[in-house]
C-alpha cells in the first residue's frame, strides 16, 4: 500500500549522490592503488623511493625488505578487492544491459539505477546459512570454492593494467595465465563430486570435459600472438603491437582474425559463459555444480564467474587488441618520461601511466560487453555439439592459423610493409562490417515500428 510505504532513508538526490560516491570512489581508489603500487613495488622503484624520499641507503637500511614486502602485501589485497568489486559491478552492468535487451528496466531499487544492488546481494549472501548437504564429502565440499577463488586470484599477478602497471611481468606471463585459470576447473570438479547431488555431478563432469577440451584451441590460438611478438611476456606482447587499430595483432595478420575468434570462443567455454554454460545449465541441471552451495561459498563461485569476465577480456585485449598502447606515444617517449632508470619517475610519467590504464580499461570493457551481449542473445549448445565444435572446427582451424602465422612471420621478415598493408585493409573491412551492422540495427528498430528512445536508460 502506497500510503503505508516506509519513507526512504535518503532523498532521491541523496541516493544519487551516495551512488555516485560509491560508483566513482570505489573503483577510483582501487585503480589508483593498483596504479601506484604495481609500479612502486618493483625493486628499482623501492630503492629509488628509499634513496630520494626517505633519504636512506637501501642496501644498508635494515627495513628495505619489510617496505617492499609490505607494499606487495597491500597490492595483493587491493588486487583481490579489485577482483571482487569488478565482478560485482559487472553483475550490475550485465543485469542492466540484459534487461534493456529484454525491454525491461532491470535493477532500480538499491541506489540510483540500482547500482548498489551488488553490494546488497553480497551482504545478503554473507549472512546466509552455509549449508552442507548431509551426505556430502564435507572436506572437499568446503575446500572446492577456494580452488576456484585461488585460480581466479592468481591471474591478477600477470594481468597488465598499463605500461608499467603489472604486478609481475613474468617472462612466461601468458603461459602462467593459461595454467592458473585451469585451476578453476579443479574446484568445479571437486564441487560437483563432493556435493553428492546428481545435478552437481553432471555439472562437474561437463565442466571438466569442456574446459580441458577448450584448452587446446585456446592454446593454439594464443600461439599466434606469441609467434608474432616473439615473447610469452604479457607486456612484451603488448609492446610488439602499436597503438592504432591497424597495428593491433588482430588486424596485422589474416590468420590472427581467426585466432582471435577461436580464442574468444574458447574463452567463453572456459569461463562457462553462454553459449557454453553447460556446467550450470539452469534449465537442464538446475544449477549444475552450484546446486548445493549456499551463502558465502556460493558467493565465491559467483564472484569468480563474473570476475572472470574481466580476466578474459583483459587477456583478449592484451593478446590481440594492442593492450594499453597510447597513440602518438612511442617506446622512446616512455623512456624519456621515465627519466633516469634508477631514480623516481616524474609526474609526466605517472600521467602517461594513468592514460595507458584508461586505454586498457576501455578496451577491456568493450570486450567484456561483447561477452555480455553474446550471453543474452544465444541459446546453449548441447554437450556433444560442444565437443564437435571444439574438435572438428576450432582445433583444425587453430592449427591452420598457427601454421599460417609461421609462414607469415617469414614473409613479414622479408617484407615488413605487408603487415601494415594487411592491418589497414582488415581494419577498413572491419569498419565496413561495423557500418553494415549499425545499419541493420537501425533497420530493426524501424521494422518493428519503434524508434530510438534512450530516455529511460
Amino acid at each position, binding site marked *: 500500500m502506497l500510503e503505508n510505504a516506509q519513507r526512504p532513508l535518503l532523498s532521491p538526490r541523496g541516493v544519487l549522490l551516495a551512488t555516485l560516491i560509491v560508483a566513482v570512489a570505489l573503483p577510483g581508489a582501487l585503480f589508483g592503488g593498483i596504479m601506484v603500487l604495481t609500479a612502486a613495488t618493483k625493486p628499482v622503484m623501492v630503492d629509488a623511493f628509499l634513496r630520494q624520499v626517505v633519504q636512506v641507503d637501501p642496501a644498508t637500511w635494515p627495513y628495505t625488505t619489510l617496505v617492499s614486502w609490505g607494499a606487495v602485501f597491500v597490492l595483493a589485497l587491493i588486487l583481490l578487492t579489485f577482483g571482487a568489486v569488478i565482478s560485482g559491478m559487472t553483475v550490475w552492468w550485465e543485469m542492466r544491459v540484459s534487461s534493456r535487451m529484454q525491454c525491461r528496466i532491470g535493477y532500480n531499487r538499491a541506489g540510483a539505477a540500482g547500482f548498489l544492488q551488488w553490494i546488497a546481494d553480497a551482504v545478503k549472501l554473507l549472512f546466509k546459512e552455509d549449508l552442507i548437504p548431509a551426505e556430502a564429502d564435507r572436506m572437499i565440499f568446503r575446500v572446492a570454492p577456494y580452488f576456484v577463488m585461488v585460480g581466479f586470484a592468481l591471474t591478477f599477478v600477470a594481468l597488465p593494467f598499463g605500461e608499467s602497471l603489472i604486478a609481475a611481468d613474468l617472462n612466461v606471463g601468458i603461459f602462467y595465465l593459461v595454467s592458473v585459470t585451469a585451476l578453476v576447473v579443479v574446484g568445479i570438479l571437486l564441487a560437483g563430486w563432493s556435493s553428492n547431488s546428481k545435478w552437481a555431478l553432471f555439472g562437474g563432469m561437463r565442466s571438466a570435459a569442456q574446459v580441458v577440451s577448450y584448452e587446446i584451441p585456446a592454446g593454439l590460438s594464443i600461439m599466434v600472438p606469441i609467434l608474432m611478438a616473439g615473447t610469452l611476456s604479457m607486456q612484451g606482447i603488448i609492446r610488439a603491437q602499436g597503438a592504432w587499430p591497424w597495428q593491433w595483432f588482430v588486424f596485422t595478420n589474416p590468420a590472427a582474425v581467426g585466432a582471435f575468434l577461436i580464442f574468444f570462443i574458447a574463452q567463453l567455454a572456459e569461463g562457462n559463459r553462454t553459449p557454453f554454460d553447460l556446467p550450470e545449465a539452469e*534449465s537442464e541441471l538446475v544449477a549444475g555444480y552450484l546446486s548445493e552451495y549456499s551463502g558465502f561459498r556460493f558467493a565465491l563461485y559467483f564472484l569468480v564467474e563474473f570476475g572472470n569476465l574481466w580476466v578474459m577480456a583483459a587477456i583478449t585485449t592484451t593478446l590481440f587488441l594492442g593492450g594499453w598502447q597510447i597513440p602518438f606515444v612511442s617506446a622512446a617517449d616512455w623512456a624519456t618520461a621515465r627519466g633516469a632508470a634508477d631514480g623516481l619517475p616524474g609526474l609526466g610519467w605517472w600521467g602517461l601511466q594513468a592514460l595507458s590504464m584508461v586505454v586498457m580499461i576501455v578496451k577491456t570493457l568493450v570486450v567484456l560487453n561483447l561477452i555480455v551481449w553474446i550471453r543474452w542473445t544465444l541459446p546453449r549448445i548441447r554437450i556433444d555439439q560442444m565437443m564437435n565444435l571444439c574438435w572438428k572446427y576450432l582445433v583444425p582451424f587453430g592449427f591452420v592459423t598457427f601454421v599460417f602465422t609461421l609462414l607469415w612471420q617469414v614473409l613479414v621478415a622479408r617484407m615488413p610493409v605487408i603487415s601494415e598493408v594487411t592491418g589497414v585493409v582488415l581494419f577498413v573491412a572491419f569498419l565496413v562490417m561495423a557500418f553494415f551492422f549499425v545499419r541493420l540495427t537501425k533497420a530493426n528498430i524501424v521494422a518493428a515500428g519503434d524508434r530510438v528512445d534512450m530516455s529511460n536508460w
Partner: protein
Amino acid sequence: MEKLILRRVDRNNEEMILNFGPQHPSTHGVINFIVETDGEVIRKAVPDVGYLHRSIEKIGESTGWHGFMPYTDRIDYVAAMFPNEGYAIAVEKLCGIQVPKRAQYLRAISTELCRIASHLVSIGTMTMDIGAFTPMIHGIRERETINDLIEALCGARLTYNYHRIGGVAFDLPEGWRDQTLAFLDHFDKFLVEFDRLISFNEIYIRRLADVAVIPGPMAIDYGLSGPNLRGSGVDFDLRKAMPYGVYPEFEFDVPVGKGMFGQVGDCYDRYICRTREMGESSKIVRQALDLIQQAPEGDIMAPKVSRNLKVEAGETLSRVESARGEMAFYVVADGTNKAWRVRTRTGSFTAMGIIEAISPGLMVADLVALIASLDVVAPEIDR
C-alpha cells in the same frame, strides 16, 4: 508411486536414476520425470504425473452448470479460453441452446487471441529451456499486450471466465477493435523479428532439428493432438476437420510440420508449427473483427438461459482445438441442476504418454527440449 515407476525401470549397476522434477526449472510446473541415464544419455524417462491434481472434474459434479465455468479456467490457466469454450459448447449441445452470431465471433476472437498468448508462452519457455533468455521475455512482452486486451474485454488477465453457457459475458468495449488491430499489425512484425532473433539461429536449429522425432503414425497411435500432431506432418485441425462455432467462415491455413531442418516430426517442426499458427490466428482475429460488425451489437447471450439451469438427462461430447491440442468435454446430465459427470480430455495429458516411448537415446538436454516442444502445462495434465 515412485516405487511403482522405479520397478518399470530396468536397473543394473551402470545406470543412474535421476529424479527430473517435481521441482525443476524446465518441467513447466510440477511434473516428475524419473530418468534412467547412462552418463548424459537417457535410457528411459518415465513421467510421474499427479502432483497438481485438484479434482476439477469432481468439482464439476458439485457446482451448478454455470458455477463450473470459473473452474474450467483452472484446467489450463495458460490458455483459459479454450476450456471455457469447450465446456460452454458441451452444455449448449445438451440443452440445445443456439448461441447468437455475435457471441460466436467474440468466442472466436477471444480464443484465437488466447491461442496466440499461449503459443507465445510455449515458444518463449522453449527458447529459455534451450538456454536463450531474451526471446522468452520478448514473447512475454507480446503476451502482456494480449493480456491487456483480454483484460479490457472481460476483466481478468489469466482466469478469464469470459464464456457463458449460451454466449459470452461481455460485448466488445469501445475502441477495442482498433487497439486489437494495431496490436496485430505490431505482432506480425514481431513474428518476423522473433524468427530472426531465435528461430533461425543455428545453435537453436541444431538443438532441435532431428531431436525426438515422432513420426506421423506414431503420433496418431499415441493420441497426440494439436500442434504436436501437426508437427509430425498430420494435417488434422478440429477447426477445419470438424468445424465448430463460426470457423467455417474464416480463411486460414493449418501449418504442418515439413521437416524444415531435419526429419518430419522433430522438435523443431513442433516449434515452427506453433510460430506459424500464431500468424494464422492473427489472420482469423482480423477476419472475425471484420465480420463481427455485421452482427447486431449487444446480442451476445442466448435468450432464456435460466440462472438455475436444469439440464435434461443425456450425455454429450464437445471438442475444441485448444492451444495444446484437442480439448474435449464429456458431460453427462441427469436432469438436475448439477452435472452427473464432467470428463475432460486435454492435450498435455496424452502428450505425456509418448515421452516414455520417445526418450530412449536422447540426451538430458534433449529431454528438456522434448518436454518444451510438447508444450505441456502441468495443471492440464493433472486437472
